[in-house]
């Protein structure tokens, strides 16, 4: 935004009033629609496209109706998380990777943040699936923490400082399994603490979060996430706030747990190194859209999208000596005012004539590898264009 001329960042009072009025109308409408859908189970149950997936994101659009305009944080995102696998979601800050996971958990700041289009399907396991966008809160409460759980970035702030560790881990089990006895719950908690590699589990059970180091706290957060054996664990930058050696410990732990448990992991990070070591599938996001997805081998050995290529070249790698790091020129486009051509065109060094046309469709270049770039328009199999939602039509 800093490269634009000054005037454009400011909006006039009448424009600001118009936006506020519009936002109020849109969000009220969406809230009503959602409340209606929540009353009827048939509206929030659907079927999975592929039974082997835990979650399917199908053209998901999550918009924020902010005071400066509509921010299309996630705009037509398509990918799925298969059973028993790890999917890494990579991108820079602000690219919508966290919003994608928050949409799945229905933890968006409502009413300004709304899922306005598409479907998020979460596998129930009995042939049907939840359509998360329409699921009412009463049902979500049984999914959150129980079937889908989340590990947050900051272990320092995601534990409650006034409760003992034991109580915080117990709470999850107690909430989702009210039939269990106190002893059984405690036994379960100790088992979890043992699983995440805490040696002094009886002692830690009676400690407060401030008595533990960052790495230990992250282990507790993982224990909390695992307490109900969820089918999907979302790890949102689980190691970013930690030191290198502690990061190694936590990654090691997650890797081991994945083999022990029957869960899938959705690993959100900006560190390509972390993804390479952990993920089976990788999704690269840029400015609210998926630009490339494939297996870890596809992405790291045959990167196709110029953004992915640039991202890899701009990170120094130990043992690979370069004189000058590549830097991607320019900045991410303003999220309030996205261009109607490829979002990466203005920063791209491989652009062609076609790039000035519509936003590129998803192009299949191998069985597992999809990319949204016109460089493969002739050679690949053309898929669908990402579907954006026209906010004016929502009212």
């Amino acid at each position: 935004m800093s490269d634009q001329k000054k005037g454009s960042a400011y909006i006039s009072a009448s424009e600001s009033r118009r936006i506020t009025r519009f936002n109020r109308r849109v969000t009220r409408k969406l809230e009503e629609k959602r409340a209606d859908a929540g009353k009827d189970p048939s509206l929030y149950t659907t079927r999975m496209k592929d039974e082997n997936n835990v979650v399917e994101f199908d053209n998901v659009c999550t918009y924020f109706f902010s005071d400066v305009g509509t921010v299309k944080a996630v705009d037509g995102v398509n990918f799925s998380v298969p059973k028993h696998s790890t999917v890494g979601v990579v991108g820079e800050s602000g690219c919508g990777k966290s919003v994608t996971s928050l949409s799945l958990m229905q933890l968006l700041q409502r009413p300004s943040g709304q899922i306005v289009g598409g479907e998020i399907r979460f596998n129930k396991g009995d042939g049907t699936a939840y359509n998360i966008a329409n699921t009412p809160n009463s049902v979500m409460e049984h999914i959150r923490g129980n079937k889908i759980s989340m590990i947050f970035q900051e272990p320092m702030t995601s534990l409650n400082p006034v409760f003992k560790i034991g109580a915080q881990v117990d709470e999850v089990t107690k909430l989702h399994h009210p039939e269990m006895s106190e002893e059984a719950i405690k036994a379960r908690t100790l088992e979890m603490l043992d699983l995440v590699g805490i040696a002094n589990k009886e002692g830690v059970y009676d400690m407060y979060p401030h008595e533990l180091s960052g790495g230990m706290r992250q282990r507790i957060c993982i224990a909390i996430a695992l307490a109900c054996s969820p089918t999907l664990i979302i790890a949102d930058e689980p190691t970013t706030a930690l030191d290198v050696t502690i990061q190694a410990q936590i990654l090691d732990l997650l890797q081991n747990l994945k083999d022990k448990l029957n869960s899938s992991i959705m690993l959100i990070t900006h560190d390509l190194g972390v993804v390479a070591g952990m993920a089976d599938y990788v999704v690269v996001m840029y400015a609210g859209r998926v630009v490339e997805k494939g297996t870890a081998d596809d992405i790291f050995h045959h990167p196709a999208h110029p953004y992915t290529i640039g991202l890899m070249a701009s990170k120094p790698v130990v043992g690979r000596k370069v004189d000058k790091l590549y830097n991607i020129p320019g900045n991410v486009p303003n999220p309030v005012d996205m261009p109607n051509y490829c979002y990466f065109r203005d920063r791209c060094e491989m652009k062609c004539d076609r790039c000035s046309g519509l936003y590129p469709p998803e192009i299949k270049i191998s069985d597992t590898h999809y990319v949204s770039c016109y460089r493969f328009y002739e050679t690949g199999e053309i898929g669908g264009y990402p579907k954006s939602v026209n906010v004016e039509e929502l009212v």
Partner: protein
Amino acid sequence: MTQKDYLLEVDDLVKYFPIKTGFFKRTTGYVKAVDGISFKIERGKTMGLVGESGCGKSTCGRTILRLLEKTSGNVRIDGKDIFAMNREELRTFRPQAQIVFQDPYSSLSPRLPVGEIIGEAVREHGIIDASEFDSYVTRVMNACGLPEYYKGRYPHEFSGGQRQRICIARALALNPQFIVCDEPVSALDVSIQAQVINLLKDLQKEFGLTYLFISHDLSVVEHISDTVGVMYLGNMVEFSETEKIFSKPLHPYTQALFSAIPIPDPDVKINRIVLEGSIPSPADPPQGCKFHTRCAGCMEKCKQIAPEYREVEPGHFCACHLYDA
């Protein structure tokens, strides 16, 4: 062999922070943040300082610039003992040695426009004639990749990468010889990191700057540094040229640290040495070798006697009993 031209010489630098308790604020102990470290940086070169958080690397950087008073030891920048200076001498010396802080969001005054942030110290120290002041600030800004029309803007209008450029321009404007970069890229995105690192390298080439580059990101350190020092709990445990230390780390801590670097290639199965536990408290460091509580190759001797920091191979310093003659 020709005499090497060292710009910075740090000799047995010690910095303790007192722990005060009770009503009378009696000193009951010390946090040994920097506990006797020595190193030298050649003119125009970059030294990387790595270590976990809490190992004293930032304190070290700040004490070198006398932003913190030392407990004991000696620091000489360009042959001048900075702890022997009085206020007036220190003031005239300050432009020589500058610092770029980690967090570009909190290290710029929100009330000053960019031109003033960069130019304030220039005017204060009389670096340039008042008549040329404006064009000088523009020149510095251009060198850091900031267009002139940013001068009247305020920090909140900029992104993280741009702010870090402003911080670098502010340090550079005083014509320094030596800059301490305290985690300058840790708060930035990957693609922005590359821009800032390239900028630092270009400026070094152009102005012959000497850097002390403090970071916990080893791949960045490997990229930018000529020599690397590894710190653990207030001590330097290993020091050598970048290539030597990365190809053949000697100290067990360095080995573990380097093996923990995530490599962006799914086929490379790293043989990670996972260190148990976390860094002990610097207020109560372990007896003997400070690393012995987490070391895989710990011997009886390590628990008793602290190893000597010495030259194990030419130009390769290490503090570990494994290499005792």
